[in-house]
């Protein structure tokens, strides 16, 4: 079966982004970028399913400017077979991303659609569910284990206080949580080989989609800082401070 993995290029998770002086947006000029961590789990899972003989072809897709080819190369170096860039310089909101991905799914007809559970830039966590809705397909979010047999995916999901197991009929949309797997490191020979794998570029405009773009970012700001605390020298001082702190009962 064919697996489609949708990935996003985001600011590296170790970087603390800053707000521009005029509060118009975050300043990400020259900042290290990479594959969204949860999306890397999604790629890894597709590769493991291919290694088990369940998946036969892995297509990676992303949406963005030409520079997004770097994360597609990364996916190819990890083990994806080919990649598609839906090219646009616009920044799309989750519903529009889902609409674009729907068009890609209709073109590729994959049995398995994998995404990360959320992107670590906008922290929305919506695209997978929205894509499943638009395709009228089952969804299994926050996957920490995926088992595929007889055209069914049995998915263990991370929920508040424990786990839930769902069985979904394929094709289905599954979003990856961190615990799903540990993504492999890309070795240099694989990076070289990935250069020979094809990346197809499709202009977003050529898909003729009616996009929504209904949410406007008015401003951004740094969150208020917690007032500086004090250092205590031992447990006794800590307890006496806590016991005199309003509302704290210890």
């Amino acid at each position: 079966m064919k697996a489609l993995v949708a990935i996003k290029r985001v600011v590296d998770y170790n970087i603390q982004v800053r707000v521009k002086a005029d509060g118009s947006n975050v300043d990400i000029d020259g900042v290290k970028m990479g594959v969204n961590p949860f999306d890397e789990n999604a790629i890894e899972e597709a590769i493991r399913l291919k290694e088990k003989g369940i998946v036969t072809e892995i297509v990676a897709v992303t949406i963005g400017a030409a520079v997004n080819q770097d994360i597609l190369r990364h996916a190819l170096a990890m083990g994806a077979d080919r990649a598609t860039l839906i090219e646009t310089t616009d920044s799309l909101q989750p519903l529009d991303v889902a609409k674009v991905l729907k068009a890609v799914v209709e073109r590729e007809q994959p049995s398995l659609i994998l995404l990360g559970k959320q992107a670590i830039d906008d922290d929305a966590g919506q695209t997978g569910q929205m894509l499943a809705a638009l395709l009228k397909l089952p969804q299994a979010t926050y996957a920490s284990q995926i088992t595929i047999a007889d055209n069914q995916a049995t998915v263990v999901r991370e929920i508040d206080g424990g786990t839930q197991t769902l069985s979904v009929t394929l094709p289905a949309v599954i979003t990856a949580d961190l615990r799903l797997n540990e993504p492999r490191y890309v070795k240099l020979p694989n990076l070289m080989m990935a250069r020979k794998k094809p990346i197809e570029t499709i202009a977003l405009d050529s898909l003729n989609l009616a996009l929504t773009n209904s949410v406007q970012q008015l401003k951004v700001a740094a969150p208020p800082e917690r007032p500086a605390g004090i250092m205590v020298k031992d447990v006794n001082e800590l307890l006496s401070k806590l016991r005199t702190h309003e509302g704290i009962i210890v």
Partner: protein
Amino acid sequence: MRTLIIAEHDGQHLNEQVARAVTAAQQWQQPVDVLIAAAQPEALAAQAAALQGVSSVLVASDAALQHPTAEHLAEIIVPLAANYTVVLAAHSAFSKNVLPRVAALLDVNMLSDVLEIVNTNTYVRGIYAGNVLATVQSSDAVQVLTVRGSKFAAAAAGATAEVKTITAPAAPQGSRWVSEAFNKSERPALTAAKVVVSGGRALGSADAFAQVIAPLADKLHAAIGASRAAVDAGYAPNDLQVGQTGVVVAPELYIAVGISGAIQHAYGMKDSKVVVAINQDPEAQIFKIADYGLVADLFEVVPQLTAAL
């Protein structure tokens, strides 16, 4: 027009975050209805109807709602949306699974984990692990959002709203609940606890985590949390993870033991009223957001603290 709250519950009890969503919903100054979708909804409907600020409770009942899927809930919610300009829920693993599906079926965007409702279509929410607060405005006809429960007080009980039954469409094919496994604990839920004691990688092992953190949590009737590093190292189960990739907590007292305080952990706990940090490294980031910091060997001072309580 009206506001619809999607209620989370365990089949018997409303999640305590529902009362917080009811408070958030008052911002629109229009009638607030609560949807209870359950196999046996009577007791749940009564709990929702008692919340002050609720106009009516809509009850959808179906045997399949014993363990509802997002697909089924979306089919119940979407036809109702014609009567509503706002559909909201408290942000949780439950709501963030269901509401994006609802929003897409309504052809509207969704705002996740809203921290502040500025006006009827403008919100403040965290991006980049809460390092940036974005003010966003939605032009959608139906505003679909989840709100951070800890930012809103819980609505009081004591009211008696009307309860109406609605028809529930049959559960769609294609997705089937198999099982659930909850980590059994006598402790309060992480998101509801007044005190949280969290352990980090400095604990060094699962045994040490249990032997150092649990007794302190017992004394304080606290929930136990963990940093991602501690979870990744296998010292604590994943559902205890506090942070961007785990749960967000805002207790009265948060005690961080052997936690460095990486950005993604701070995201999950920096709204706590009082933060205590115990760490051997005086340069640890956690001290920048702590009210009280103690540079010490945790294996020495945490048992001392436990004994002194």
